[in-house]
């Protein structure tokens, strides 16, 4: 089994996000960067499949030099090798442009499975995976919480609103990981040592013959809309608190 896992490096979920001077991007100065949490499920699933069925796991990440850290984390978890598409300007790019770049890097590898996290927790788009599936003409199994891979086929459980679907596709396929798929392992100390010696290839978009073309144009970033200050519900007893709250929700907020 030849598995590719696409990894995005994103700000830690605790990070305070400040809008940069240009008003269109974020100030990356103080940010701690981590592997996108959903991608960890992809790496873990790939490692489990390869442990069972043999094969190799290649992780691919695109972006500035710092992205190497996220790739090293995946290598430390157990991935075999990494490809870094290095481009200082790529962070914040149109996901469709990123998909085109990844397609150039992935196509020659002929993978059986391409994993993604179901979305990256920075731009929250979730577009790259399905765009890549389209560009490579592959089936997509999105937001999956359970996966079986056997006999050249993937069978995936996908919860949707009020239903759970079981999807089936012949490999190769693009699969996006949702929480629940597995419990990602932590990189062990020996893992971290070993990762340093694993192959990590650096390519530029030019090496791949990829031209950047963004359709999306961010005109401006704004802070979230302010919420009006809240009120403390008064009451001497739980019953009184509950009665007052119910009254406020009915008469003032009119939501029940």
């Amino acid at each position, binding site marked *: 089994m030849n598995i590719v896992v696409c990894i995005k490096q994103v700000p830690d979920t605790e990070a305070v996000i400040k809008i940069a001077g240009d008003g269109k991007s974020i100030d990356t100065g103080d940010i701690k960067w981590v592997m996108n949490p959903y991608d960890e499920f992809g790496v873990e699933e790939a490692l489990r499949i390869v442990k069972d069925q043999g094969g190799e796991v290649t992780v691919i990440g695109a972006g500035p030099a710092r992205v190497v850290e996220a790739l090293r984390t995946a290598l430390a978890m157990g991935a075999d090798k990494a490809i870094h598409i290095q481009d200082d300007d790529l962070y914040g790019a149109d*996901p469709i442009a990123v998909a085109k770049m990844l397609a150039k890097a992935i196509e020659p590898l002929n993978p059986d499975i391409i994993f993604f996290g179901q979305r990256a*927790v920075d731009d929250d788009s979730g577009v790259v995976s399905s765009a890549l599936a*389209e560009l490579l003409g592959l089936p*997509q199994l999105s937001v999956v919480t359970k996966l079986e891979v056997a006999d050249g086929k993937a069978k995936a459980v996908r919860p949707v609103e*009020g239903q759970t679907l079981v*999807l089936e596709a012949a490999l190769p396929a693009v699969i996006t990981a949702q929480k629940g798929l597995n419990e990602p392992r932590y990189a062990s100390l020996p893992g971290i040592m070993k990762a340093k010696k694993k192959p990590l290839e650096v390519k530029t978009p030019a090496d791949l013959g990829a031209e950047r073309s963004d*359709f999306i144009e961010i*005109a401006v970033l704004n802070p979230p809309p302010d919420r009006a200050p809240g009120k403390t519900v008064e009451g001497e007893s*739980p019953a009184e608190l509950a009665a007052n709250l119910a009254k406020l*929700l009915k008469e003032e907020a009119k939501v029940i």
Partner: protein
Amino acid sequence: MAGVWIIAEQRDGEFRKITFEVASAAKKVADGLGTEVTALVLGSGMEGACAELGKYGVAKVLYADGDAFAAYTTDAYTNACGALIKDGGPDVLLMGASMQGKDLGGRLAARLDTGIAVDCTALAVEDGKLKATRPMYAGKVYADIFINGSPQIASLRPNVFDIVETGGEAAVESVSAEAGEIKAVVAEVQAAEEGKVDLTEATVIVSGGRGMKEADNFKLLEELAGKLNAAVGASRSAVDAGWRSHTDQVGQTGKVVTPNLYIACGISGAIQHLAGMGSSKVIVAINKDADAPIHTKADYCVVADLFDVVPELTKEV
């Protein structure tokens, strides 16, 4: 036949609420552009239902009938919608940022070689172009986005756009469309528990966190939710403790929800949790710690023991 197009969403032959939200939002965009709304409906035996979309501002429905369109598949929708859109050349294409829309949007954008703004919370027209507003970094910033491609595609976050009934019937035109090869097949559909409201569609959510102390205590929240026709959500701590299923998690690595009312019980209000529910219209916090961050986000703060207050509240509503 340019203009604003929407992709309707149906299940078992009935339009889903998100379709009316998207149609209503599309009508406003179309008015801004001085054009009309066309809805693409893929279904099986649904022709009679299509005219109803006129109520929500749709002028025209293109209806494609086929067994392969009875239920959503990525491939059938990409193939059929892709071809119809290439043919019709709309300026703007809107759909829901539901599970279906999130699955379809990126693929369709790649097929049509254009851009997409996902999970938008506001739309406007500026200088004849669509301006889409969407939260990024889990709602820590909001981006105003233009799409320099055609069509300009945007998917709309459920429960955010008002349903506006403008009246009228849509003209329905039957069109033929190829489903093409279905590479990812829906082999099985399991219905959720009877009466269980999905978090992303619920107008009221009652959520519990570590303060619930054990799985059994969620009964209290279920009783309250039952009376409010609400869904029950959870913090990651409650999910990781095994008290609730993964699909119930609200937050940055769970579901992003925008109900009219979100009642957080025994939830501290960590930044990752707020990311998932911070844009709810009204937030209630029931937390005995007056300093819990959730109280700074809530519209109504109840500083008390949830085990005392929640059963009383269930009686009151």
